[in-house]
């Protein structure tokens, strides 16, 4: 079973990426709040009448640029693969993780979508096992894709469910 290449990214399975709209959603939230901060700094600087303080606005702007780039990389790193008996979910660029969730261990599967998610047309599939720590979720799926994935996972889970 040892795969050549990077052990954190087994290449003997078909990985599915998530929608880049997820990156857009996260960027709107993160960069938006930084932008608000930058504007606040500009307003304060204007009121104080100190030209140096305007430079302070550059900090959140630079941060926003970095976050923009980072989110792109992070979302690109999220991927999942359905194997015969379990689901693989991988994420992270610096701190990488690869989770294996056996279908037989899934207690139930949720599909979640917040208001921004709905506006962007994405949803999150959340898998629940009896373990509190197995954080297996796949964000950034198209709603119909999420629904079919949930149905498929639930069907496979039922076929293989083996108590606790």
């Amino acid at each position, binding site marked *: *079973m040892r795969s050549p290449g990077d*052990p954190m990214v087994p290449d003997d399975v078909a990985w599915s990426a998530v929608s880049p709209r997820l990156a857009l959603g996260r960027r709107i939230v993160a960069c938006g709040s930084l932008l608000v901060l930058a504007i606040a700094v500009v307003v304060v600087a204007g009121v104080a009448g100190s030209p140096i303080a305007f430079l302070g606005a550059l900090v959140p702007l630079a941060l926003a640029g970095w976050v923009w780039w980072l989110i792109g990389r992070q979302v690109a790193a999220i991927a999942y693969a359905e194997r015969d008996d379990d689901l693989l979910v991988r994420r992270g660029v*610096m701190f990488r993780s690869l*989770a294996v969730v056996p279908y037989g261990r899934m207690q139930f599967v949720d599909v979640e979508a917040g208001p921004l998610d709905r506006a962007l047309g994405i949803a999150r599939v959340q898998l629940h096992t009896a373990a*509190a720590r197995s954080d297996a979720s796949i964000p950034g799926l198209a709603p119909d894709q999420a629904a079919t994935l949930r149905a498929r996972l639930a069907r496979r889970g039922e076929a293989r469910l083996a108590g606790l």
Partner: protein
Amino acid sequence: MTTEAASTIPGRTPTDGEWRPLHPLTPFVRGWKVVAAALVVVGQQRGGDLAQRGLPSRTEALITLAAIAALALLAGGYALLAWRRARYRVDADVLQLRTGVLFRQERQAPLDRLQAVDVVRPLLARFFGLAELSLEVAGSGDSSIRLSLLREADAQALRSTLLARAAGLAYEGDVAPEAPEHEVLTVPVARTVESLLRNGSMLVGLLLLIGTVVAAVVLGSPAPLVGLLPIGFTVVSVVWTRFTGGFGFRVATSPDGVRLHHGLLTTRSQTVPPGRVQAVRMRQPLLWRGRDWWRVEVNVAGYGGGRNRDEGAVEENLLLTVGTRAEALMVVGLALPELAAAADIGIDVVAAGLTGRGSQGGFTSSPRGARWLDPIGWRRHGVLVTRAVLLARRGVLVRELDLVPHARTQSLALLQGPLQRRLGLASFAVHSTRGPVRPSVQHLPADVAAALLHQQAERAMSARADSTHDGRWMMGR
């Protein structure tokens, strides 16, 4: 026995499928708790004043008493209402409990998903011969059902009946006979006390106390001692809780599963049926090393969730408060019958995992590169996979060994930080149900960890496929 008494009186069996109330003394016992809490608060508030201002005036005392009486009336009234609404019933497959004064709740526990049954006797309830029956069913969050309070005999009878029905065991009459119990081990009180003293914070506390006493004597004033009082109070209460919780810890076996009895004031009898233990951790704090004592903690689905978080989660999850190595290994053997069933490893291998380092005992350990990340403990990080159980070893100062049966593996994960990536390492984690045991192995070679992840997923699957311990464990025996 008590079960006979319960079954000979028609209509008194607690398991005939009828809706029945809890014991009529319940509101008194439960309402009393609120009053006791109020008394403690008043005592703490007024105790400080007493030293400075002397006895309170008559009106002040009357007002306080009246407030306490009003509170008692209120608490008692609410408890009475709650008792009148509470009804439970048991039939062949489920236990149901209806509760709630304002917000009604009906809970249902499918017996084939039963994870553990506890009979808890709080101090006051013991005076009246009452007990609380607490059932854990697999579920997320607070999934336990508490029947509080029942006659002790009823609680015992109900426990054996629930366990028998959960096991799929046939019996005559309405109430199953109590399963015979075989006691295997008792923790002596002296050892409990010594284990509490052999504790880092305890030693620091003692040194602090000695220092303050010396300071007080030198200064000739009790001021430093008074300053120490709040800390002393906290330490004493923590130690007291541990002492009373673990007092008289007894481990027994029965066909129902592992039985644990413990407690000084509030006594608790836990029954964990076979195959319900999700993971085991053996732990040795630094100061226990001289005695070679070990503590054994377990994850059982339902234990340590919801309400239990503040109420003795540690206590519930203990399989052995303190024991010698031989005792600890025996208890682990009881909790994980898989360990003995798989003939490929003896208990020796487990023993090797307790203290071994590097590749001792056949463990796969961290490579040399890991010393950059964990200069002290890198040799202790190790993993061993046997036919039925995964063993994860760690810790130089505080030694730990986690055991997870393959059939109880929930999900798995591989984690890798930037430094680990540079060094070609990865950490491997097994996800178990909520509890003190969080099995993981740090800093394995990345390719070994990846191979382990996939092999373990397959092993977990095949182990589940032929696991006989799920659901009704006496069926087909």
